[in-house]
């Protein structure tokens, strides 16, 4: 009985991080229609820069967060400016974007390995553990969930209530019409990449604090983010959040039943089934909300 | 030859086609007209299989088409063009047309050992059709080198070469210069004389008047009026639906 509850809690923890990744991807996909797998690289930089500044250089964590966010956003924006926008100018086919995003992903992952070296990094954070009978949850985990929720709420509010949010929705629905209506769609895409990358940086930081970081996690997280996005219905932030939780949940179940080795494959199995059976996702929205 | 019975189709809340019914006779030229958004291209998509109806039935030569895949419908004899030219951009004109002409080239074992070039018979057929429509371009050129008007001629050639009993032309003369427009008028009439059955979507009423036996007017997803061109163009309902368009 308690095991189920623990699974739930672990699912929420993992899901919170995946939700940050997935929402960022949703933003990016909504305005640019690119399957930005290289998003995983941004997450990596977020985590590694933070670790480097705080743990290796011994500077304050706040500074770490600052550099992490700045660095990740810069990387995300660069990828867009130097590659995706250039391809857009040349009216590239879908195939071209797929190849370039994978190329960026591998390029980025190898850069991380080169710059920060491959050994597993950890933060060795010990925080108070709260126990309810056989349930465990640490303070760190609680903080993680709170920060996630907070950011996601702000995000939703921005999309719903601000002028920028409106412009994003318009661009997502039909970027030609949006641009005719005077919306600078290129700016909107930039901002989407910026916001998405910021979320990715935070995700990276939180992952680092709670779990360990390694160079391969970038691609896994990107895939999980996409899975969450597809489950929830591409274009819906709320859906992505729900999808993220679902991914987290099924992962925990898989680990419980089959052992840790299969954890990362569950997302794919989920992705496979959803694409086949319910490609529009659970919320079936094709519009950006 | 073609019969639509109470066809309805909506896309995410927008009712594109509503209770649409009409019949097409063999060896005729029918024009499907109507204001933008009337549902004409949707009808084309529903007949050719690019879309499936929510309600109603489509019969082609008494065969129910409803959920048949696109390629099966093509093999039944339905051949179509597209509003915006769609071609195999990396291949030559000749390759494009050979693909249209050939019939079993999707069967690996049959085609594996055949020559890709196309035998004399195939090539002659292609040159014949290109001649017929007046497409004067070296067949070896990449298909993207065609001018707009030439693309329209190419579209027609491809539709003709594809083995068919029924031709659906989506705005064959949209944006085309007057001389080419006249060429198309002659071509279509010749095709009818050869026994072809044609359904076309067009906005150019003069063109329609010259070419069509029957005109079907659609508005807001259903058939508004049906009859010969002269009758249609003096019908009040039709003029109202077209408010603002010169007839």
């Amino acid at each position: 009985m308690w095991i189920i509850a623990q699974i739930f809690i672990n699912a929420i923890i993992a899901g919170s991080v995946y939700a940050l990744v997935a929402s960022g991807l949703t933003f990016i996909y909504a305005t640019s229609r690119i399957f930005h797998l290289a998003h995983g690289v941004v997450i990596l930089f977020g985590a590694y820069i933070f670790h480097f500044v705080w743990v290796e250089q011994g500077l304050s964590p706040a500074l770490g967060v600052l550099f992490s966010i700045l660095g990740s956003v810069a990387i995300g924006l660069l990828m867009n400016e130097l590659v995706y926008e250039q391809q857009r100018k040349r009216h590239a086919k879908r195939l071209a974007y797929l190849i370039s995003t994978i190329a960026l992903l591998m390029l980025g992952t190898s850069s991380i390995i080169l710059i920060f070296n491959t050994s597993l990094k950890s933060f060795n954070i010990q925080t108070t553990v709260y126990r309810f009978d056989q349930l465990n949850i640490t303070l760190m985990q609680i903080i993680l969930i709170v920060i996630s929720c907070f950011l996601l709420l702000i995000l939703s509010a921005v999309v719903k209530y601000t002028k920028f949010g409106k412009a994003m929705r318009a661009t997502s629905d039909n970027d030609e019409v949006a641009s005719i209506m005077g919306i600078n769609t290129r700016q909107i895409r930039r901002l989407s990449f910026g916001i998405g990358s910021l979320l990715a940086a935070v995700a990276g930081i939180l992952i680092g604090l709670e779990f360990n970081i390694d160079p391969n996690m970038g691609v896994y997280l990107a895939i999980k983010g996409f899975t969450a996005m597809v489950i929830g219905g591409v274009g819906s932030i709320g859906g992505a959040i729900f999808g993220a939780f679902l991914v987290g949940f099924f992962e925990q179940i898989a680990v419980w039943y089959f052992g840790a080795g299969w954890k990362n494959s569950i997302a794919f199995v989920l992705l496979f089934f959803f694409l086949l059976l319910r490609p529009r996702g659970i919320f079936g929205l094709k519009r950006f909300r | 030859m073609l019969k639509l019975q109470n066809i309805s189709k909506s896309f995410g809340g927008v009712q594109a086609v509503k209770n649409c019914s009409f019949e097409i006779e063999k060896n005729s030229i029918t024009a499907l007209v109507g204001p933008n958004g009337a549902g004409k291209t949707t009808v084309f998509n529903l007949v050719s299989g690019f879309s499936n109806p929510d309600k109603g039935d489509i019969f082609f030569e008494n065969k129910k088409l409803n959920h048949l895949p696109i390629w099966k419908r093509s093999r039944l004899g339905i051949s179509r063009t597209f509003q915006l030219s769609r071609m195999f951009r990396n291949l030559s004109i000749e390759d494009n047309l050979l693909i249209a002409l050939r019939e079993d080239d999707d069967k690996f074992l049959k085609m594996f050992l055949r020559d890709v070039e196309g035998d004399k018979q195939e090539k002659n057929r292609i040159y014949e059709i290109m001649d017929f429509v007046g497409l004067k371009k070296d067949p070896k050129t990449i298909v993207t080198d065609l001018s707009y008007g030439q693309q329209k001629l190419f579209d027609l050639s491809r539709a003709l070469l594809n083995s068919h009993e029924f031709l659906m032309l989506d705005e064959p003369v949209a944006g085309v210069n007057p001389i080419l427009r006249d060429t198309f008028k002659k071509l279509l009439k010749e095709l009818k004389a050869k026994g072809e059955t044609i359904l076309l979507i067009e906005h150019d009423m003069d063109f329609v008047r010259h070419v069509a036996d029957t005109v079907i007017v659609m508005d807001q997803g259903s058939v508004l009026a049906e009859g010969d061109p002269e009758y249609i163009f003096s019908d009040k309902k039709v003029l109202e639906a077209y408010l603002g368009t010169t007839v």
Partner: protein
Amino acid sequence: MFAFLIYILTLICIYSIIVMSLNLAMGYTGLVNFGHIGLLGVGAYTSAILTTKFDVSFIFAITFAAILCALIGALLSIPSRKIKDDYFALLTLGFLFVSGAVFINWTDMTRGTLGIRGIVRPEGFAEPISFFVLTFIMSLVTFFILEKVTNSPFGRVLEAIRDDEQVAESLGKNIDRAKMVAMTLSGFFVGIAGVFMAHFIRFINPASFWLDPLVISLAAVVIGGLASLRGSILGVILVFTISESLRFLSLPSTMIGPMRVILFMIVLLVVILFRPKGIIGRADLD
């Protein structure tokens, strides 16, 4: 020095098969198959397990592995009926990961991360030169067969599917079946390549079918040119030439791996942006 040359040439032959078969699916048919390397691994592991654990002959092993991979290729093509483009690519990436997970976790068969050692070359081909000749012949055979396929009416239909699938269908082509044939052939040959790789290097582990081959094959197929078999061979030669030249930079060994990837990916991106057709490709990415 000579031994080194033979070594590289053998690898080039093996990779030529990998890239040509990838090109068939991607460059000619337009099916982005990131799982190609996963199938390479399946071919390799199948043969390795059959010959080391079950003492099966090389001929039987390679036949079995090739057919198995052909079958999986066929299976992979089925989702492409409902799932298109980007989503299909995502799914194939999934196959890559799942196959990787299987290699790592099915320890009874694959020995997990320890890998499989002591894979023996077929009778009479144990010497590097003779194995190279065998590999070379295989790559020639592959080239000729794939050349016949792509340079036939069927090949043109594949290209039509790549350029505009719906229009191809509207011309009466059974596109689902054609795609299945393309993926089956692609799987068949990459399976064979996997077998050759396993018996050449004589040691495989999950990491052998992960980043490195993916990087090499992706770079080679794009740089050489999509929809050009000769381009694929050229691409492989180029990639290996660049790769080996890096040795002369005398970098620390931990740096070489990542540096290679970075270099290839940058070249890949440059090619995609400024010369999407690659060196002698026929299909444009624009």
